[in-house]
Structures are given as structure tokens and as C-alpha cells.
């Protein structure tokens, strides 16, 4: 198969105009001549369930996750999509108990990095902010690449024309109103995406042969691919992804931003709905990869990323091919606009608001322009990286590891009043230092070093499962789960895990950062942090009329009047002097 069915140029232009024009129209409807800085970053922290659930779902369904799930189905067989989509969904679910705690201590914050500044000081904040800037630029680039490739494959337009059109479209509707535009358009995008999934999966299934395909095509699968409990799928896809789950949930600003945006009493409902929506959508799309495997389809140019467009072009009539096109454009746009607003909020709150101007002197109007200029620069950077075929994979791995090393220090900082800035920073550096040589196999892992790596990785298993348990069941259960998991895994994992460097790399990052953080925290016997300080140190930047919620004063600082004393205390925090 060398030539795929394509959409004509006018149809693609019409679809793009309808999609981005509709998004722009929605954005204009809610725009204000003078936007509020806090609204630009988190929508004022009082968004309802419908929009926030739609936004969480839309943001986490990105084009790459659809392609990756189908690839997993094609590579690992019937369990493949589960090992991608289920753990990805768990990522959203896992943050909700932590999210409630984060909102409890910092109800009016905008970024996790901002909270870390209030908790520890500048180095912790910049570690989180830096990783988020990198992560969001990578995600933006990845979405542009996916969109460009789709347009190149399914239309007469080129890859470059595709990425420019998508970048311009997303920037246009997000630029003026920021996060408010992002979440509102997410609703329309999620309706388009989920609606398309509901139609496309059954249509492709029956067009490919229906139930009989499982009999006629069974010979195309290896025994591992036919096994729902495939160890191959678990160790190569599922397990590394589980380890990544917590890291992405805690480290990624696009999730944190929605956490700070949704009304506090709706956090659980929102995150549970998004978990189910994301999981079902991504696993469902992954089934296309399984069907391709049964049908004996070979990916075009041996590139598994071509599988989904290839199946769509093969089995869908022209009208549904248009629906498919909108589904992919919707998935990548909703994530790209979230990346833009995440970057904007980091530059506004963490860089300008707290490190350049200072919270007391930050000008809300300047903040908004910082956000808008950030979006323009980020879009240009994404276009540059996408068009220059820059290899972002290693960068993505590095960011994932950084987030992995951040998980325990960040979570413990919200619950344990003895964690210090030194413990936080040293833990993250130690996690990274252990991750790099293991993940990239810089050292020979056979022999003693391999065993040492395995011991750390086994502790990492306990840390990951313990943290998951901690979110839902508290400290005692977490300690039991972590200890039992480590001891139970040890006989099988030690001497074996180092043969899976992707998995081992993540696990040693968790273990090393946890051990260092715990040891240095236990060494702190005198200083105790008062979590009530975070609520005072974070809060609205913009108290002008028509902006933040009238209730803001109940939860956050009342305004400039109290800022002076707060800033004085922030100076102390920057020196690492927690309240004794």
C-alpha cells in the first residue's frame, strides 16, 4: 500500500477554518478588554465540573497518546492498549488525593512551582518550573509534528504548511484570554474527539472484518500477543509506564493548572470522570492497533505512527475521514493550548511574579503581557524544533526522569513538616545522578553494579506503590504496601531488573531521591514548617475589579495591604529559614 486515500485541499482548508474559527469564536465570546492575571492563569479557581472534566480529558488525550496506544496494541497484541491507556488514566486518578491536599494548603496558587517557592525557596521552585518549561515545549513540538504528519499524509499540503497552520490556529484562539480560552475550547474539542471515537472504532472494526477477523487473523499474532497477561507487554510497556505515571501526574503543570482552576469541592468528581474518559478513549483507539495486527496490515514506510491514519484512510468513507481528521486535530490542539497556557503561567507567576518583580511589585497588566509574549515565543520554538526534525526523545526521557526524581520530595513537602530545601534539592540531584547512567547504560550493569542498581530499583518499586497507597489510604498503609512490595519483589527483581534499563532508570530515580530526602529530613530535628504559611505566601496577583472571584479574599491574601509583611517572610523562606 503506497498511496492512501486523501482529503482534497478545499475540504482540509474548510475543516481547519471550521475548527480553528469555531475555537476563536468561543474565545472571543468570553474575552475581556482587560483580562485578569489570575483568570489568565487558572480561570479564578472556580471552574465548574462540566468544563473542568472536559478540559482534563481533552488535555490528556493528545495525538501522541492515540498513536502510542495503537502502536502498543500493534506491538504487544491484545493487552497492549491496556498497558498504555490504563496506566495513563491512573496518572490522572492518582493526583486527586494529592491534589486535594495541595488545594487545601494553597487554595489560590497557580503552579506547583509557586507552592514550592512558598514551601522551600527558589531552588526547588526553579527545578519544577524548569522541568515544566522543557516538558511543555517538548509536548508542544510533539503535537505540531503529529499534526504536520497527519496533514502531509491525508491532504495535498506539506508537513511545513501543516505545522504552521496548526500553530497559528492554536495561538490565535489562546493568546488573548489564556487559560480561560483553553478550557472553554476544550469542551468543544472533547465533544468532537469523543464523538469521533464513538463512531470510528466500531466502523473500522466492522469494515476490517468484524468478529470473524479474530478467527481469520489469529495466525498473525505470536503467543505473547494473544496473551492478555503478556509479560512482554508488562515489562516493556506497562511497568515503565506505571513508574512514569506518578512522575507525570506530579510534575506536569497542565494537570496542576486544572487542579488549581476547578472548584475545590469538585476535584474528585472531575478527576474521576477524566480518568474514565481518558482511559476508555485511549484504550479504544489502541484497539485499532490490535485490529491492524489481526488484519496483517504493515505500517506504511515501516513507521508505526502511520498506523492510525492508514487504517482511517483504508476503512473510513470520506465523511468519516473528515471526522477522523477533526479528532486528531482536536486532540493535538487541546494539548497544545494547554502547553501554551502552562508555559505562560510559569513565566507569569514563577519567573516574573516571584523572581523578577516580586509578588508585592508585580504588575498584573505586565504579567498578562509576559504570558502572551511567552506563548508567541513558545509557538516559535515549537515550530523551530518541529521543522528542524530536532530529536526530542532524549530530552523527553530526561524531563521524565527529572519529574520522577521530584515526586517524593514534592509529595513529602506537602505532608511532612520536617522536609527542608536542602533535603528537597539534594534528593532531586541524587535521583538524577542515579538515573542517567542506568537509563542510558553509561556503565556496565553486569556484576556488582548491576546488583546495586537492582537493589535500588527494587526499593523504587516499593516507593512507587507506597506513594500510590499513601494518596488514598494514608501513611500506615503506604508503609506496609511499600515494605511488602519491596520484600516481595526482591527475590525476582534483584539480578533481573537491570536488563530493562528504561524501567530500572525510573525506579532508581525514585529510590535514590526518596532515600536522600528521608535521610536529610530525619537529620533535621529542630525546624518545623507551618503549612498555613503557604496559603499566605501564594495567592492572587490581580485584585482589580472584574477579575478574581469575590471570595478570593477569604482564601488568599487580601491584597496589597498584606503583601509587605508576606514578602518579608518570603525573604526568610528564600534563605531556607523555615518557621521553627
Amino acid at each position, binding site marked *: 500500500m503506497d498511496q492512501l486515500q486523501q482529503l482534497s485541499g478545499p475540504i482540509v482548508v474548510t475543516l481547519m477554518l471550521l475548527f480553528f474559527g469555531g475555537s476563536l469564536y468561543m474565545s472571543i465570546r468570553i474575552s475581556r478588554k482587560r483580562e485578569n492575571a489570575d483568570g489568565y492563569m487558572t480561570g479564578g479557581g472556580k471552574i465548574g465540573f462540566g468544563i473542568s472534566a472536559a478540559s482534563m480529558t481533552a488535555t490528556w488525550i493528545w495525538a501522541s497518546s492515540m498513536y502510542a496506544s495503537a502502536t502498543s496494541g500493534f506491538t504487544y497484541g491484545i493487552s497492549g492498549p491496556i498497558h498504555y491507556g490504563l496506566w495513563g488514566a491512573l496518572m490522572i486518578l492518582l493526583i486527586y488525593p494529592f491534589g486535594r491536599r495541595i488545594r487545601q494548603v494553597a487554595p489560590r496558587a497557580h503552579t506547583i512551582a509557586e507552592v514550592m517557592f512558598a514551601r522551600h525557596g527558589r531552588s526547588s521552585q526553579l527545578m519544577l518550573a524548569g522541568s515544566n518549561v522543557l516538558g511543555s515545549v517538548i509536548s508542544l513540538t510533539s503535537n505540531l509534528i503529529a499534526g504536520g504528519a497527519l496533514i502531509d499524509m491525508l491532504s495535498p499540503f506539506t508537513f511545513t504548511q501543516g505545522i504552521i497552520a496548526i500553530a497559528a490556529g492554536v495561538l490565535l484562539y489562546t493568546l488573548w484570554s489564556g487559560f480561560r480560552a483553553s478550557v472553554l475550547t476544550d469542551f468543544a474539542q472533547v465533544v468532537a474527539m469523543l464523538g469521533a471515537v464513538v463512531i470510528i472504532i466500531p466502523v473500522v472494526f466492522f469494515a476490517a472484518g468484524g*468478529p470473524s477477523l479474530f478467527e481469520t487473523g489469529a495466525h498473525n499474532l505470536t503467543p505473547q500477543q494473544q496473551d492478555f497477561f503478556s509479560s512482554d507487554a508488562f515489562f516493556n510497556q506497562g511497568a515503565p509506564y506505571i513508574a512514569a505515571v506518578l512522575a507525570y501526574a506530579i510534575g506536569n503543570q497542565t494537570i496542576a493548572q486544572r487542579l488549581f482552576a476547578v472548584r475545590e469541592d469538585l476535584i474528585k468528581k472531575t478527576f474521576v470522570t477524566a480518568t474514565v474518559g481518558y482511559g476508555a478513549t485511549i484504550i*479504544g483507539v489502541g484497539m485499532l492497533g490490535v485490529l491492524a495486527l489481526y488484519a496483517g496490515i504493515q505500517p506504511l514506510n515501516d513507521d508505526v505512527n502511520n498506523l492510525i491514519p492508514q487504517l482511517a484512510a483504508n476503512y473510513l468513507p470520506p465523511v468519516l475521514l473528515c471526522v477522523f481528521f477533526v479528532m486528531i486535530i482536536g486532540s493535538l490542539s487541546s494539548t497544545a493550548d494547554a502547553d501554551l497556557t502552562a508555559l505562560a503561567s510559569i513565566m507569569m507567576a514563577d519567573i516574573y511574579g516571584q523572581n523578577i518583580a516580586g509578588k508585592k511589585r508585580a504588575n498584573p497588566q505586565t504579567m498578562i503581557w509576559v504570558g502572551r509574549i511567552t506563548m508567541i515565543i513558545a509557538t516559535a520554538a515549537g515550530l523551530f524544533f518541529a521543522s528542524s526534525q530536532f530529536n526530542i526523545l532524549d530530552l523527553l526521557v530526561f524531563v521524565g526522569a527529572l519529574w520522577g526524581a521530584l515526586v517524593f520530595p514534592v509529595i513529602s513537602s506537602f505532608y511532612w513538616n520536617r522536609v527542608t530545601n536542602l533535603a528537597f534539592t539534594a534528593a532531586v540531584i541524587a535521583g538524577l545522578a542515579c538515573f542517567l547512567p542506568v537509563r542510558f547504560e553509561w556503565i556496565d550493569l553486569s556484576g556488582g553494579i548491576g546488583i546495586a542498581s537492582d537493589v535500588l530499583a527494587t526499593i523504587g518499586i516499593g516507593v512507587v506503590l507506597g506513594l500510590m497507597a499513601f494518596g488514598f489510604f494514608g501513611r500506615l498503609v503506604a508503609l506496609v504496601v511499600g515494605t511488602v512490595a519491596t520484600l516481595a519483589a526482591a527475590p525476582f527483581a534483584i539480578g533481573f531488573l537491570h536488563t530493562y534499563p528504561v524501567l530500572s532508570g525510573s525506579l532508581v530515580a525514585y529510590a535514590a531521591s526518596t532515600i536522600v530526602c528521608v535521610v536529610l529530613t530525619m537529620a533535621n530535628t529542630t525546624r518545623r514548617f507551618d503549612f498555613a504559611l503557604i496559603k499566605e505566601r501564594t495567592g492572587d496577583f490581580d485584585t482589580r475589579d472584574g477579575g478574581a472571584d469575590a471570595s478570593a479574599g477569604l482564601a488568599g491574601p487580601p491584597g496589597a495591604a498584606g503583601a509587605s509583611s508576606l514578602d518579608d517572610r518570603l525573604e526568610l523562606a528564600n534563605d531556607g529559614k523555615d518557621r521553627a
Partner: protein
Amino acid sequence: MTALLTLYVLIWPVIVLGVLAVIVRAFVKEWRQAKREGRSII
């Protein structure tokens, strides 16, 4: 086995439809309420 695999493939769009219905219903409710109160939904 064929029936199970068919169910395994087709159950996901059904769940997606359910989630979509929940989200749309909530959005419409919030939109109407915002309209009644004369404020923006976001």
C-alpha cells in the same frame, strides 16, 4: 473467545459515550445557570 474479543474492542466506545453524556449534561447545566445569573460560564 471471538465474542469476548468483540466485546473487548467495542466496550470502549460505549464507555466513551457515557462519559461524553456526563460532560455535556454538566456543561449545559452550568451554561444555563451562568446565563440565568447573567455571568460568563468561565
